[in-house]
């Protein structure tokens, strides 16, 4: 009885969150088998098979799987599920779209956003936007879990390639299809992978001023984030949002600038290693949890900070 890890990828590269899921899989019993489903995804297979700890790779490479829709991926995973005690995927939009569908077809429960393993049937996962941790025991024979990547280390080691097994099962996609995919292009690092994140909130006042956040981020090589308030006010697009309803991040260094620290935002960033808060209100909730805080007008502080960091780095 091993563990099946469903690999998240774009047919070219494995998404880095999968490396965190692999680290979670190490805490389950038995060997790790990775499943790569896609189309013309050979480079992903090579990357996965040479990642440390992977015992075997299943590959389903068919045109029907190109866009990785849950409607035909779920029955494929079900067809392969029998030998596995655990099936793991990242708690990203990909994993959350897919795994509940697999679970229902197998008639078993699924646990979302797992952050800790207690024993082979007992896990901790976050509820109430991270304001509570629920410990659950799984009563079904199989454990279907989405893994919160920020709670587990990334596996970065390599190995000589694991055995690759081709899966011929080709399930047609009948009732749904992808029309268009608009991915946001940015030269900055992706939020969930960045070592440094600079986030701005309502305190920035308008879209124009948000450039101050971007300038600081660029000096630091950081990703840009935002609070829900800033997104709702239209300063930045939705995928910048850090928080319960946006992305959950845990970088080495997180700047919260002009962000008061609503519960919903804190839920998305409170596991960051170092938090810097810049706010004019010294009683703002963000100031209570920040490692370092500066009280004052961000329009004074931010340009100074950017300028001094620029001269430090040059």
């Amino acid at each position, binding site marked *: 009885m091993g563990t099946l890890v469903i690999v998240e990828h774009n047919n070219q590269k494995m998404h880095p969150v999968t490396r965190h899921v692999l680290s979670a899989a190490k805490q389950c019993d038995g060997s790790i088998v990775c499943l790569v489903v896609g189309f013309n995804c050979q480079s992903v297979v090579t990357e996965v098979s040479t990642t440390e700890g992977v015992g075997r790779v299943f590959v389903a490479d068919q045109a029907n799987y190109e866009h990785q829709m*849950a409607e035909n991926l*779920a029955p494929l995973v079900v067809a392969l599920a029998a030998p596995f005690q655990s099936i793991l995927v990242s708690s*990203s*939009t*990909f994993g*959350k779209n*897919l795994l*509940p*569908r*697999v*679970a*229902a077809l197998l008639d*078993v*429960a*699924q*646990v*979302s956003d797992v952050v800790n393993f207690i024993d082979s049937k007992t896990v901790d996962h*976050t*509820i*109430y*936007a991270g*304001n*509570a*941790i*629920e*410990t*659950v*025991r*799984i*009563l079904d024979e199989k454990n279907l879990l989405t893994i919160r990547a920020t709670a587990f280390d990334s596996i970065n080691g390599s190995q000589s390639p694991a055995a690759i097994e081709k899966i011929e099962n080709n399930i047609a996609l*009948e*009732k*749904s*299809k*992808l*029309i*268009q*995919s*608009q*991915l*946001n292009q940015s030269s900055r690092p992706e939020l969930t992978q960045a070592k440094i994140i600079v986030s701005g909130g309502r305190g920035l006042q308008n879209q124009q001023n948000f450039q101050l956040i971007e300038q600081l981020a660029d000096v*630091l090589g950081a990703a840009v984030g935002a609070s829900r308030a800033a997104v709702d006010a239209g300063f930045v697009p*939705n995928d910048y949002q850090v928080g*319960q*309803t946006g*992305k959950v991040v845990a970088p*080495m*260094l997180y700047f919260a600038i002009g962000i008061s620290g609503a519960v919903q935002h804190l839920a998305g960033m409170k596991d960051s*290693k170092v938090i*810097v808060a810049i706010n004019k209100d010294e009683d703002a909730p963000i100031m*209570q*949890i*920040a*490692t*370092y*805080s*500066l*009280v004052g007008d961000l329009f004074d*502080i931010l340009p100074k900070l950017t300028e*001094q960091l620029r001269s430090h780095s040059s």
Partner: protein
Amino acid sequence: MKILVAVKRVIDPYVKIRVKPDQSGVELKNVKMSMNPFDEIALEEALRLREKQIAKEVVIVSIGPTECQETLRNGLALGADRAILVSTDTVHCCLNIAKILQHITLQEQADLVLMGKQSIDGDNNQTPQMLAAILGWPQATFASKIDIDASNMQVTREVDGGLDTIAVQLPAVVSTDLRLNEPRYASLPNIMKAKQKQLDVIPLDSLNLSLKPHIEILAIKAPSIRQGGVKLDSVEDLIDKLKNEARVL
């Protein structure tokens, strides 16, 4: 077209929750309860589809104790035509909720099920996908735009890193994300009118579904509280600390 909207009664999003010291759960006594905000968005979308005459009827359903009638009355005041409460005092896992909703969906012969992508208590984000699976229907999760034309629907989905637009055949299950719309408020006349609308209470036992427990909740704990650090006086101080104390620059 008939739309079924599933709504859950949850702790109001603006209430700061308190975990009970004995780890048995979250304090619900004397706490303000509301309709799950994502479900409110689902209901709003259903009402707009009816106003555009794409939908004929909007039925709302909730599963839970008697108090859920209050949530359903609120939904009726917002404009739903009819409400169903499947009454049960047991807390069910997502899979069992999906099975109950499957029964109601088929009984009502709904063409479209709309519901929030997750409830803000359990944060599971499972029930819509599970319901779609056991119905054998396609799913469109995390919807930020819905266009319906005859039996075809196009849904824009909020995914990590951008937006996906998919075409989905009806009948289907759609789970709604925050940016789909801004829900309306109930007007006083509509609140009065809602009291006359039909609200059927069906005891769960009478449905004869075979539901078994799939997970057991052992404890609900408060997360460790992050300790705040130092208040600094200047940008120079901050850069110094980040370089020499935290060593992150």
